């Protein structure tokens, strides 16, 4: 669901704090009604970018346009954006009702109308009757909802969310993810969501921008980010990824043959990166795309012999770590659990073989 109509345009935006380059020449567009996530490790510049959208920071370079309007000289209180803060920033001296109605006060609505709007908002966030509570009487999840309602009653064109679910426990976070998505569909406004939690970004977003060290590395849908990362940093950051390094031996139509050294011959399907013969490349394979074999198969490409290492039990699946001769890192292999067997299917130290299809891997340049 990539929105076609551009609503926010970020053009060559950079931000430095002294010598530190927080955001470095970033350009991209966000569509109207899109759920757009900025994902990256802490310190990657995602929050700074969000704060520039809100108007709390001014770009050192470049320009931000919202709905075609340049935002350079527009104060935060005059922007069509509202923000849900990381710590929620609920006003401690006001009760829930006054918090939610805060942004409406300057409209000088009649009291009955204001109350109706706030009651409606309390209904939406499933906290009816909480109007007279004080913020310190609310749980983390409830504060989060109040912050959301407070921003939404102002009817912003863009809602900015700065890691709003970070402080919640896992169960509640998953609930809120679904709820946020639902609310976004209902109100149909553009959401810009900052998170360092990849799972969160993958489940909720229409598109995700992966950021690192102030730069945007890749902007794509969740599935494309996961299945076809465009560089090693993205591949490493999202999920678990195995990398096999080698030198391109031949490029033949849909197949690229790679000399993996001690790993033997590796075959890759076509990826976005088009290598030339003799180039050093990385083959990236997800753990769930590797097949674990207990007996030696017929020799061929994409076949690695190794020794079973430790198992990481994750409940819904296990990651086995296989050590292959001549490969510096342990290789992660995911296995589905189709039975309730508590026994490990392979013993530690046992010889195993790994195998994958050329289409299962992504070919990346060595950066």
């Amino acid at each position, binding site marked *: 669901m990539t929105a076609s109509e551009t609503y926010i345009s970020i053009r060559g935006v950079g931000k430095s704090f002294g010598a530190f380059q927080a955001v470095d020449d970033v350009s991209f567009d966000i569509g109207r009604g899109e759920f757009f996530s900025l994902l990256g490790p802490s310190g990657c510049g995602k929050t700074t970018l969000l704060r520039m959208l*809100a*108007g*709390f920071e001014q770009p050192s370079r470049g320009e931000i346009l919202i709905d075609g309007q340049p935002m350079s000289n527009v*104060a*935060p*209180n*005059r922007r069509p*954006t*509202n*923000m849900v*803060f*990381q*710590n929620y*920033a609920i*006003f*401690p*001296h006001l009760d829930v009702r006054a918090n939610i109605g*805060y*942004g409406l*006060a*300057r409209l000088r609505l009649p009291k009955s109308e204001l109350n109706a709007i706030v009651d409606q908002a309390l209904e939406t966030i499933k906290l009816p009757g909480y109007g007279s509570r*004080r913020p*310190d009487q609310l749980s983390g999840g409830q504060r989060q909802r109040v912050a959301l309602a*407070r*921003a939404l009653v*102002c009817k912003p064109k863009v809602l900015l969310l700065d890691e709003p679910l970070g402080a919640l426990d896992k169960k509640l976070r998953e609930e809120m993810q679904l709820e946020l998505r639902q609310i976004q569909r209902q109100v149909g406004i553009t959401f810009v969501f900052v998170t360092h939690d990849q799972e969160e970004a993958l489940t909720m977003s229409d598109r995700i921008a992966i950021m690192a060290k102030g730069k945007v590395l890749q902007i794509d849908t969740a599935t494309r980010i996961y299945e076809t990362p465009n560089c090693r940093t993205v591949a490493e950051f999202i999920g678990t990824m195995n990398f096999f390094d080698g030198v391109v031996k031949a490029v033949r139509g849909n197949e690229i043959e790679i000399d993996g050294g001690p790993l033997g011959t590796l075959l890759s399907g076509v990826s976005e990166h088009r290598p030339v013969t003799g180039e050093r490349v990385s083959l990236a394979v997800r753990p769930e795309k590797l097949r674990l074999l207990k007996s030696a198969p017929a020799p061929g490409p994409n076949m690695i012999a190794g020794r079973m290492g430790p198992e990481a039990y994750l409940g819904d699946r296990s990651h086995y770590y296989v050590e292959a001769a001549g490969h510096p890192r342990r290789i992660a292999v995911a296995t589905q659990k189709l039975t309730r067997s508590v026994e490990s299917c392979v013993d530690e130290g046992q010889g195993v073989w790994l195998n994958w299809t050329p289409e299962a891997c992504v070919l990346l340049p060595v950066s």
Partner: protein
Amino acid sequence: MSRLFRFDALFLYAVLYLLFLYAPVLLLPLFSFNDSIYIAFPLKGFTFEWYRQMAENGPLIQALQNSLKLAVTVSIICTALGLLAAKGLTRPYLPGKRLITGLLLLPLVVPVLILGIGLLVIARQIFEIPLSLFTVGAGHVLLCLPFATLVLTSRLEGFDRSLEEASLDLGESAWRTFWRVTVPLALPGIVASLLLCFTISFDEFVLAFFLAGNEATLPMFIFSQLRFPNKLPGVLALGSLILLFSFVAVALSEWLRRQDVQAK
């Protein structure tokens, strides 16, 4: 229980210490009801005479009014200025922050005597301003401002900046944000600053002595009365009332503070 009331050296020290602190203060109310103009034991009998005399003492009432006017004005001005200073000093990026802080707090370490002479010279010799309550007020603002700034800075320092950002984000101007978020949250600090400045100004003697001209403040009046032994019981009555008033004020503000803490 026995452990709480062990009559050892430390206990004795504590008792003596408390006596030393409070006995002089408690002598005031005691002798203000004593039916004798001499401050001496044994007590002669109970009387309200000194309180009656005090109420009829025109110059005393005038001095009390002067001091109240002065202290109220000074505390309001200093708290307002101190709030603005604190707002600036607690900004995340402020070039020259240490220098500014140092300059703002300097009057704390300058002897009041020096300050008084300096102000007197400036007022009389340079600007030729007649001495009055206004000149005392100006001196007191100088004296109280560092206290107000300190109290309010410490209050605003523990302050979540994103609350002000949230207010701006929700469409309020910087000015309205100041009134709707900053001031209510700084309120305990504002009250503390008002009380502190009031107290400092109310019993300040040295600057007032230099700068008041013939508009005496209460401390000046009381000092002038000490020359007349028969006026002393009246001063004691006045002192007792001030004591009672400040006790009630402190108790009240403490009670308010605890209500606030409990509400959180």
